[in-house]
């Protein structure tokens, strides 16, 4: 546990000492600021509903960039030889690094809190959906970052990790499109897996346990796969 903390601390420092956090953060914030202001001018309603939905879609593109370096770079630079031969479990390494990306994401989200603050200052928004919406954004982002972390475990090439991570998220996104064409229980089952579908209720102010569980198991499965991937590398190369 203590070692997870050490890995986490080092990784957070690496994020904020390099341009990655600032550049991805800037892109994410510019886009969400654009959505917020356009939607506010267009609808003139003190609500975050549309803005949060668009931010979520934006983050599908941002998350792989944020995570692609995590494990791939260690392998590339040979620093994984230090970590994997130290008395630290692979789980500690993966979880520590993953949590660092989650913290970075939370910093982005914290900056966007300025939008609801503006709404409150000039209007009287219904705060319930905003709170639940942000909880949903957090869970949704955490899920995206877990998939990205897994992609980063697959390769030593950051670019490949980014593309694969994006591919995984895109697949889970477009699952909901497929469900429109495929009817019946199969279609329903497929749409149950869709990563954005579970976000809708949070936006509307509903905190449903099943959606929360979906995101948590999404995180668990991909982090587990990342740990297994790194462990299995010892056998091949």
């Amino acid at each position: 546990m203590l070692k997870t903390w050490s890995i986490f601390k080092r990784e957070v420092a690496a994020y904020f000492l390099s341009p990655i956090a600032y550049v991805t953060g800037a892109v994410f914030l510019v886009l969400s600021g654009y959505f917020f202001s356009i939607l506010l001018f267009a609808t003139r309603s003190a609500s975050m509903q549309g803005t949060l939905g668009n931010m979520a879609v934006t983050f599908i593109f941002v998350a792989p960039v944020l995570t692609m370096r995590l494990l791939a770079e260690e392998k590339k630079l040979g620093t994984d030889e230090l970590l994997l031969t130290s008395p630290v479990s692979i789980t500690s390494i993966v979880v520590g690094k993953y949590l660092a990306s989650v913290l970075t994401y939370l910093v982005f989200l914290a900056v966007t809190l300025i939008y609801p603050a503006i709404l409150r200052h000039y209007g009287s928004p219904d705060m319930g959906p905003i709170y639940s919406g942000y909880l949903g954004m957090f869970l949704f982002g955490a899920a995206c970052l877990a998939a990205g972390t897994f992609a980063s475990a697959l390769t030593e090439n950051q670019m490949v990790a980014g593309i694969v991570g994006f591919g995984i998220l895109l697949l889970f996104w477009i699952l909901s499109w497929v469900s429109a064409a495929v009817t019946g229980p199969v279609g329903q089952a497929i749409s149950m897996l869709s990563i954005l579908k579970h976000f809708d209720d949070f936006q509307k102010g509903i905190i449903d346990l099943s959606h929360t569980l979906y995101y948590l198991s999404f995180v668990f499965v991909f982090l587990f796969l990342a740990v297994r991937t790194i462990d299995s590398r010892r056998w091949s190369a």
Partner: protein
Amino acid sequence: MIEVKNLTKTYGRARGVEDLTFSVEKGEILGFLGPNGAGKTTTMRIITGYLAATSGTVRVAGYDVFEDPMEARRRIGYLPENPPLYREMTVRGYLHFVCEIKGIPRSRRSGHIARVVEACGLGPVYGRLIQNISRGFKQRVGLAQALLGDPDVLILDEPTVGLDPRQIIEIRELVRGLGSKHTIILSSHVLPEVSMVCGRVVIINNGRLVAIDTPEGLARRLRGSRCLAVRVRGPRDGVVAEVGALAGVRSVSVGEAGSGAGTPGGPAGEAVLSVETELAADVREALFFKMAERGWPILEMRFVDLSLEDVFLRLTTEEKLDDASEVAASA
């Protein structure tokens, strides 16, 4: 302290190391010698737990590295071939981080780091970013990282590669000094380095153990014979048969002495031989009269001194052939 038994590692169809068995006693410095690609790094990575073996066991300080990896790793300091450094960290930050992941208690950390920094001569760069320090200092930071936690066992993979001659001497001195407190395995493809620093040498080639002995022992083993390089104009097979029949001759091989089998046996009509003889026997006169009797003129005849370098080459010539064919294939 380190016991390696029947260690085998295969990569798909390719062979990494095969049936390697050796042990290292407490306080010993063992040299690991072999051409590039012989399996040195693979073996070291298995001992440190970075790679898993296909079969065989490795025990470090009594702990099996596959079954008890955490206990074994606590006792190992490892310097990989490329020092595992985070470029964006300062030397100070990096060494603290290594202390943390090695589980050194906070109260002991700063004193311990100070000692290691002193031993590795890192004082001048302690506060600087790793990406800005010289190659020699990077190597020392890597070594300092391995020393943190006072591990019983140090595994150093080519610690002097890529350094300038002065830095090489400094690192060697440092490693030799560490030998009193730690058990060390050091790999190298530079022979004098190993014979200078190590008490015992393992020569590994093509993933197999070729020889294990003290540097003196290895040299003696091959100096138990003398080597005579001979060039004769005459039928190769006939010359080999005649020379082989002389008293005092141990073996005759076609090709330049010291450069190993596989070199051409000279132009057509000539036989280039390397003749191994008893240490006491001088076969030159007998050889001359025998050749004269058959009417095959001797063009050249001289003793060849086998240095440790030749020993190494002789023991690992098979690898040289493989390398040559690989180069040819990739060209």
